[in-house]
């Protein structure tokens, strides 16, 4: 990454750093001498490197149900942690008390992981990414509490207007801001001011005593005012209603292997589960992933190129810098079918002798960083999406999914279709009831016979869980034809 930022973006980065220093350090009487002392305590003999991490979270959520805004809540938390790394070992201590004595004690506790050799004092160097992926500041600014209430009512109104069978609408809004600062033993001092907003709508529709639901949502790292500027509320409310209506007529899904065409966008959750987790550096360093030691091998057909990119402006999974201060970027995971690289944090990159890729993420100061995905997607291919559907004599078209899960060791993964259709003679047929799809990560992409030209990213509502830590992520994919995956229906 470039280290010579242009003046305007450098200024932005300095603003985040100044803000973080003021809010997280100065307000807690933590100046350079205190950081220095803590770093000294952390870097006990035998410690290779370490870091002090500070963050502050504030978030607000609003919920509408029964046509009224029932509750609004505000959450605020801040704290710090110290991590010392010695080879494969990590010592870690955190607290939500921010003061010099607690910091020193956390540093000593974390540093106790290792014994042997010494370290001198370090010079802190201000550093930042050379760009601006999202606006700093309060993402809710410029959008009053009254407007927030009105926004939820608009979702409710639009959903009820879309279909008279709508019985209930649940609309939610969340606005969050996370300010972080990391000070590491190599002298790096970096900060990031991360906005995150999300809107969601769930619709319940009833016909002849049968109830079905539909869900839609959107969001990203941008001001709320920008998120809703495009009058998207109506569009998403109608989308939730449309899904519920489709589900009214759904038939039992088939049971067994089928040719499956995955629609563009959110179905990219396939990539997240099938290959994404298996390509995280920690699992590969330890040799516990089904992909371990397979760089350079073909794991997909040559139409498949899969990347993880944390540097996309405004996306939910994006970060200026990861939680260890490494600028994010684009990491090619699979290139024309060949396994090209893993996603790394500092610890695992160091142990594997490669560069960190900006994927070192943590849920909060109270959690250790790990290699995590950011925005993971497949690059577009040559085929027209219509042509892909037309090519299938008998199969399943899966348009929307709930979540998924993977066993990275066996490589088996699942993802659950929430909107799917039969394909017969190249045409979409009857909608199908919810069914889980199960496959094998290392081989599923070798069955991708057609990749569409219509790459789409998900609307910005994804979260990923790993080892008890949740982080926001994005996924994406063009329309893709998979020649054989097990569909877990009942028919």
């Amino acid at each position, binding site marked *: 990454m470039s280290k010579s930022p242009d003046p305007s973006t450098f200024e932005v980065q300095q603003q985040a750093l100044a803000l973080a220093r003021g809010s997280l350090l100065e307000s807690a009487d933590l100046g350079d001498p205190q950081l220095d002392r803590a770093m000294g305590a952390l870097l006990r003999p035998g410690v290779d490197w370490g870091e002090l991490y500070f963050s502050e979270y504030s978030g607000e959520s609003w919920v509408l149900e029964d046509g009224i805004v*029932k509750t609004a*809540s505000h959450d605020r938390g801040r704290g710090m942690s110290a991590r010392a790394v010695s080879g494969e070992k990590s*010592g870690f201590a955190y607290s939500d008390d921010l003061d010099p004595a607690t910091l020193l004690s956390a540093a000593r506790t974390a540093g106790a992981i290792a014994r042997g050799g010494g370290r001198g004092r370090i010079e802190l160097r201000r550093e930042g990414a050379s760009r601006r992926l999202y606006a700093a500041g309060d993402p809710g600014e410029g959008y009053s509490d009254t407007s927030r209430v009105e926004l939820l009512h608009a979702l409710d109104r639009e959903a009820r207007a879309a279909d008279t069978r709508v019985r209930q609408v649940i609309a939610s809004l969340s606005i969050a801001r996370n300010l972080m600062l990391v000070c590491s033993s190599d002298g790096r001092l970096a900060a990031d001011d991360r906005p995150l907003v999300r809107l969601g709508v769930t619709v319940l529709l009833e016909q002849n005593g049968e*109830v079905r639901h539909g869900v839609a949502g959107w969001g990203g790292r941008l001001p709320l005012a920008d998120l809703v500027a495009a009058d998207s509320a109506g569009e998403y409310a109608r989308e939730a209603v449309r899904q519920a209506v489709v589900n009214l007529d759904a038939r039992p899904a088939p049971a067994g292997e089928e040719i499956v065409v995955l629609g563009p966008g959110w179905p990219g959750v396939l990539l997240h589960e099938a290959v994404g987790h298996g390509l995280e550096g920690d699992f590969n360093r330890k040799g516990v992933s089904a992909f371990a030691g397979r760089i350079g091998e073909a794991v997909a057909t040559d139409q498949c190129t899969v990347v993880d990119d944390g540097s996309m402006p405004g996306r939910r999974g994006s970060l200026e810098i990861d939680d260890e201060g490494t600028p994010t970027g684009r990491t090619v995971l699979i290139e024309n079918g060949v396994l090209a690289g893993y996603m790394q944090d500092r610890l695992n990159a160091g142990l594997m002798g490669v560069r960190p890729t900006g994927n070192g993420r943590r849920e909060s100061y109270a959690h250790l960083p790990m290699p995590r995905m950011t925005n993971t997607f497949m690059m577009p291919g040559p085929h027209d999406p219509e042509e892909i559907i037309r090519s299938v004599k008998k199969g399943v078209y899966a348009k929307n999914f709930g*979540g998924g*899960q993977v066993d990275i060791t*066996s490589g088996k993964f699942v993802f*659950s279709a929430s909107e799917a259709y039969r394909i017969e003679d190249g045409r979409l047929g009857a909608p199908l009831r*919810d069914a889980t799809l199960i496959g094998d990560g290392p081989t599923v992409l070798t069955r991708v016979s057609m990749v569409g030209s219509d790459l789409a990213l998900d609307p910005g509502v994804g979260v990923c869980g790993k080892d008890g830590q949740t982080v926001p992520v994005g996924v994406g994919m063009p329309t893709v034809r998979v020649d054989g995956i097990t569909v*877990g229906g009942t028919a």
Partner: protein
Amino acid sequence: MSPNELSERVADALSYARKRGASQAEASASNNTGLTLRVRMREVETLESHQDHSLGVTVYRGQRRGSASTSDLSSGAVRETVDKALSLARFAAEDEYAGLADADRMATRFPDLDLHHPWDLEAEQAMELALECEAAALDSDPRISNSEGAGVDTGESAFAYGNSHGFLQSGRSSSHSLSCVVLGEQDGQMERDYDFSVARAPEELTPVKEVGESAAERTIRRLGARKIRSTRAPVLFTPRVARSLVGHFCAAVSGRALYNRASFLIDSLDKPVFADRVNLNERPHIPRGLASRAYDGEGVATADRDLVCGGILKGYFLGSYSARKLGMETTGNAGGAHNLFLESTGQSYEELLAEVGEGLVVTEMMGQGANTVTGDYSRGAAGYWVRDGAVEHAVHEITVAGNLKEMFRNIAAIGSDVDRRGGIYTGSILIEDLSIAGA
């Protein structure tokens, strides 16, 4: 922070809320400390020390509700949090059902649930335990090829809850656990599995050696797994996964799903929802129980209840809000269920295998795949294929699917092999006929 200090913060938040114009208020606070040590391949991997606290407050301005929380428990920050909740409450709508649980439902008796058994565990000792646990797994079979490690975790909590009815209670609890995850390899195929133990008191944990050996044994049993052809067959859910079926039932009879009519069990009270051999009870006051509570998240007294008797649904899980919406009384379940016991129909695991005859044993499940609105159920699974009442081979990359409404009615047996490591106590569950998707 001690329970008394937390009580003071809660009391301060409540009196400040009243002073600032709240007609009702409730607040809760907690402080958690702990130690986690993980080893991997016979070396320490991480040593984590935990310490956190938080306070949350909900205020009412008449029928308008607002809430806020903070991790800073200083007096100034707590008051700011109350002010924030009050200001948000202005923007919430009048909701005729909003408010605290009724004053006459507040708990007045506080049995000693014996939940606090701190473990004075030094890092050195934790390391020895974790190393012994992992070594037991690694050394048990040459096919055990790798490890994701073993861990020891100990934690203590202090908590307090109060509301403007004058209710104010505090207490302490502890929780300790051991876990081990290892990998096995055979003919180029890798599998992993795990085992764990969790308890309120350290002396109740399973010996580390047993946890390690069991993790290894479970992993070895998965080796040689293969996909099977799609079919319909009896399916036996082992206790670790059977618990999730009870969880789906809880979701379907919880207040919010019911008042939104977003449940496949709406209007089912006093009707058969399970096979008539099924009985489910809630026992909130089990000493050292992992989900034991004397009062719920609103201060309402908890009590023993029969939820399902002879297959008939006898109760829901309601807090005061959903109860008012449904025109019913709170069941003391604001915040969830408190120790659920699915009664065994008497058979041992071996007897259940015999009952399966030919069919599937599920030991692990993947994905969400349960739709509470329709009851549609479809989840990824791994386990064993059974023929003539005996395990034939391991199975993976399959799904089991059906509709929960029918699945509950088709429960043929509940084993005596009860798993006690959680808030849901159940043995293996045998369901007569399910759809299995594979090759």
